[in-house]
């Protein structure tokens, strides 16, 4: 067996967390624990980059598979990656160090504990994206709740306890059903190994119920309408780094789950429930865009816009076309970058003025020009301007949707207009206009670490907008295989009378 690269990716952050935990804490060493965290997360990023480079994009099978017996005859610890999951791992390892860099400004107390929470969270998130066993997946998926719950509950704002519990209640409720479904799958097929399940297939008479159980969990995490109301609250109360991780990665676990499990394990049920998903996605796109338009709190606005963007993701996945699914994955990666960046941008001004109310700002461009530039790029990314990564995802999703249902694609396209409206209006209210408030006039432009973090996000957003090939290339084979294997193109073929 080769070097267990995936397990290393998973375990490295935990080792770092333990290291920080055992280092004696005193104020002077807060900095050193930050450097440890930064070092670990960067090492993890380069490791995953290496993984991406050596990964063979032309092969359908899972690669770097590791299997160890865990509970004999029941669960094996099994991990592996294909072209889809590897992108999410990269996203995770890319965003985490950025979060670590920003903690200085936002976290005033118990920095050490915060870093430990982030590192543990990274372990779980990477675990989610590479586990190939349902039980292992479930454990990582749910365990991810705990550090996030703590991040919101301990380092959050005024209403942090309410938000943390709301977050926990919602997400746990769905998960319980998923656990039941996983146990049932074991009873039906005798295995929880994803690869074996792909080969075996699940009898279609069980699929609908199982699909619904998985769906209830994923829908909450996505979040889809109408179980989205925890997200704005969680974002508003979470500290900046928490919001970034939540928006950029935690939300993507559900989208990933839809592709890997809902489509992969229950193709018939997925087809059956397409109308449901379409409807909820469309409501999410239009409804939350309208709500976002009227928000007075920056974080809430971006949180609602996240719901709308994830609406495109769920829509794209269930078009079950090559463009739709690839668009969804691309949209998830892009949204991971853009929303992370937007929350960082909110964090930047929040650190200076300690308010998130939009109308307290205005005219920032005169005193914070550097900030205005990067914020503009992210705004454009969020509204899906061609030349940013946001465009590619949205456009591919809509293209896929149009193939399946013209009405759905038309309504979803309306969301693009609204998206421009709320983002530009937000930008205008914060950045343009006259400088009126005295305390706003005293704000200083980006500091060096802020410039570094924000430009690190600007570059991929623009690069992948002009040259998305590296990402699409990586998922192409896996997505095509997913569609072929489960014959998801059925509807197309029926429609064309083949």
């Amino acid at each position: 067996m080769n070097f267990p690269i995936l397990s290393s990716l998973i375990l490295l952050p935990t080792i770092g967390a333990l290291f920080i935990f055992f280092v004696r804490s005193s104020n002077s060493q807060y900095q050193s624990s930050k450097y440890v965290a930064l070092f670990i997360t960067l090492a993890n990023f380069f490791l995953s980059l290496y993984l991406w480079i050596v990964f063979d994009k032309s092969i359908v099978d899972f690669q770097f598979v590791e299997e160890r017996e865990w509970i004999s005859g029941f669960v094996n610890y099994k991990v592996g990656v294909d072209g889809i999951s590897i992108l999410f791992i990269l996203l995770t390892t890319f965003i985490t160090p950025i979060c670590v860099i920003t903690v200085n400004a936002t976290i005033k107390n118990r920095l050490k504990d915060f870093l430990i929470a982030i590192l543990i969270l990274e372990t779980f998130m990477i675990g989610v994206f590479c586990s190939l066993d349902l039980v292992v997946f479930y454990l990582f998926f749910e365990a991810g709740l705990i550090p996030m719950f703590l991040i919101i509950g301990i380092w959050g704002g005024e209403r942090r306890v309410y938000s943390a519990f709301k977050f926990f209640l919602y997400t746990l409720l769905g998960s319980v059903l998923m656990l039941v479904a996983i146990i049932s799958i074991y009873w039906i097929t005798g295995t929880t190994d994803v690869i074996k399940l792909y080969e075996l297939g699940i009898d279609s008479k069980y699929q609908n119920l199982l699909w619904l159980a998985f769906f209830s969990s994923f829908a909450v995490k996505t979040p889809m309408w109408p179980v989205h109301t925890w997200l704005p609250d969680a974002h508003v109360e979470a500290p900046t780094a928490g919001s970034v991780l939540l928006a950029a990665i935690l939300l993507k676990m559900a989208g990933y789950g839809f592709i890997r499990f809902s489509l992969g394990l229950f193709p018939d049920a997925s087809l059956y429930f397409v109308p449901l998903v379409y409807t909820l996605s469309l409501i999410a796109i239009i409804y939350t865009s309208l709500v976002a338009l009227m928000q007075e709190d920056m974080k809430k606005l971006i949180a609602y816009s996240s719901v709308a963007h994830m609406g495109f993701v769920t829509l794209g996945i269930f078009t079950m076309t090559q463009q739709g699914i690839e668009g969804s994955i691309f949209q998830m990666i892009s949204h991971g970058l853009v929303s992370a960046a937007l929350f960082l941008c909110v964090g930047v001004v929040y650190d200076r003025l300690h308010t998130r109310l939009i109308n307290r700002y205005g005219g920032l461009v005169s005193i914070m020009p550097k900030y205005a530039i990067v914020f503009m790029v992210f705004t454009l990314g969020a509204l899906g301007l061609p030349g940013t990564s946001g465009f590619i995802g949205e456009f591919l999703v809509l293209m896929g949707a149009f193939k399946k249902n013209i009405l759905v694609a038309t309504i979803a396209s309306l969301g693009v207009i609204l998206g421009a409206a709320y983002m530009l209006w937000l930008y205008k209210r914060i950045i343009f206009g006259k400088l009126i408030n005295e305390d706003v006039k005293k704000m200083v432009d980006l500091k060096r670490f802020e410039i570094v973090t924000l430009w690190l996000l600007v570059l991929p957003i623009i690069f992948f907008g002009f040259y998305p090939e590296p990402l699409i290339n990586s998922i192409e084979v896996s997505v095509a295989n997913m569609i072929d294997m489960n014959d998801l193109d059925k509807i197309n073929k029926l429609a064309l009378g083949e």
Partner: protein
Amino acid sequence: MEYLILFLPLIGSIISGFFGKTIGDRLSQLITCILVSISALLSLFIFFKVVSSGYEHNAIIATWINSGSLNVDWSIKVDALSAVMLVVVTLVSSLVHIYSVGYMSHDPHKPRFMSYLSLFTFAMLTLVTSDNFLQLFFGWEGVGLCSYFLIGFWYKKETANAAAIKAFIVNRVGDFGFALGIFLIFYIFGTVNYDEVFLKIPEIIDQKINFLSFKFNTIDLICLLLFIGAMGKSAQFLLHTWLPDAMEGPTPVSALIHAATMVTAGVFLVVRCSPIYEYSELALSVITLVGMTTAFFAATVALVQTDIKKIIAYSTCSQLGYMFFAAGVGAYNVAMFHLFTHAFFKALLFLGSGSVIHSFKDEQDVTKMGGVFRKLPYTYALMVIGTLALTGFPFLSGFYSKDAIIEFAYISDTKFGIYAAGIGVLTAVMTSIYSWRLIFKTFHGDYKNKYLSIDTMHESPLSMMLPLVLLAVGAIFSGFLFKELFIGHDTMYNFWGESIKFLEPLGKEHPPTWFLFLTPTLVVVTIPLSYYLFVKNTKIVDEIVSINMPVYIFLQKKWYFDELYDQIFIKPSKSFGIFLWKKIDGLIIDKFGPDGISNLVKHFSFKAVKFQSGYIYQYAFIMLLGFSILLTLLIVK
């Protein structure tokens, strides 16, 4: 060479955008001007190469999107159509760059301004040189973005910001249709490359498609959806509301973006897609109808506006209407010809008005000007040339292109042909009246400005006058010189080659002689008439206005479109957003969802708490009660 044309402006934009502070105002102005000028010279060279040898070239720069069956490249396509656009874009752009050096001399953000102008040029060039619909869309939204930046350039002005957002959003509405059109094209043909799509068009003539429960002919639907995009970008009737507001931007921007180049992108799109439109009678009729409605509507509004830039903006809107109805009657080459000549004289008028505004220290209201033709002789002369060209005074450029449109409308056998020609003549007369009204109010009559003494009036610097002179040369000669090339009947030599498709060659017969003389005569007659009305005897106009007050206000308010849209779209969206947020999210989902559940749990646990009172006699009593019920049940059974 094509690469240079395309990327020089981008390089200029990057240099002056990112390093403007370090290299200073002068240098960044110099660099952007030189780079765009080189690009213009190269474009001219390409143009002559196309004219002389029918040069065509399609360069692939790189792959853009490659997903499943969707393959899109970054490309540079040069043919007759894009060569014309290259010349228009780079030429006007370079003149505007030079002009801006003078016009923005008091502005603190010169490098940023130059950077936006160059970036716009780059985006516009990617638009016109695309070989597929997706890159076209990239350029399309790119120019929209630059337009947004430039309209909102003076970011401290509330109105400028509002206008910028409005422009972007209204354009997005158009783009919504455009995007759906692209989806449909991809759905039907499996490709978005022009040549491949155009090749397959004849195969699907009779194909029907269900769209929003209506049955459409597929080609009709594609054409209509694409045309919605064109309407947004070219400010056609119903989607025109952003263009007048866009005048909040600096005047060079209005000349470049909102007169000569960006707003003509819609016309370009229709002409580029002539191989599709030729098969759709319905779409062509719609285009004719929309075009002439716009031409008429905008001209009526222009009659009563008092803001010098808004008059010209509505005039642009109206002229774009002309281009569309030329395309609608199948005379794509005439549409392109008018686009070409219009770029010169409209840019001239805008830059001239900029020179006037500059002299009046940012005053734009024509009722506060007047009597300065002696003080600003060159500006005056140049503006008069622009006006003559615009109104179609014989042998100036507008005469050839606009009259050609009206003639082709007259002889075309489409449904709206004659009707369109009638509206065309009527609008031409109105055009002449409002244009001369502008000239006379601005330059003749009494001096009416209270804040500035007439002695402070002075001509603008050379950097502003030079571009005006060059544009004036274009406005005078471009019609005469290029008439044969663009719309000539000589079948031996076809300049357009494959870039424009005519299913049937355009009719060669001429309209009756009286009709040929009608428009020019009317146009000439209106000059003294306008002079009499707006200078000599203004009472008549006042009387007409006071008699027809409701009509006047209706026109003054621009047919109430802004108010209407506010009521129909903006306010309901906002209140609906609030409703969804506060009522549905807050009162229904949260109340019955998480809060409801936690309250329910709390409620029951409170109840449960009460059971545990700790009094032994209560426990004993309950036990006894239960025991007796159980016993009763057993006995009854």
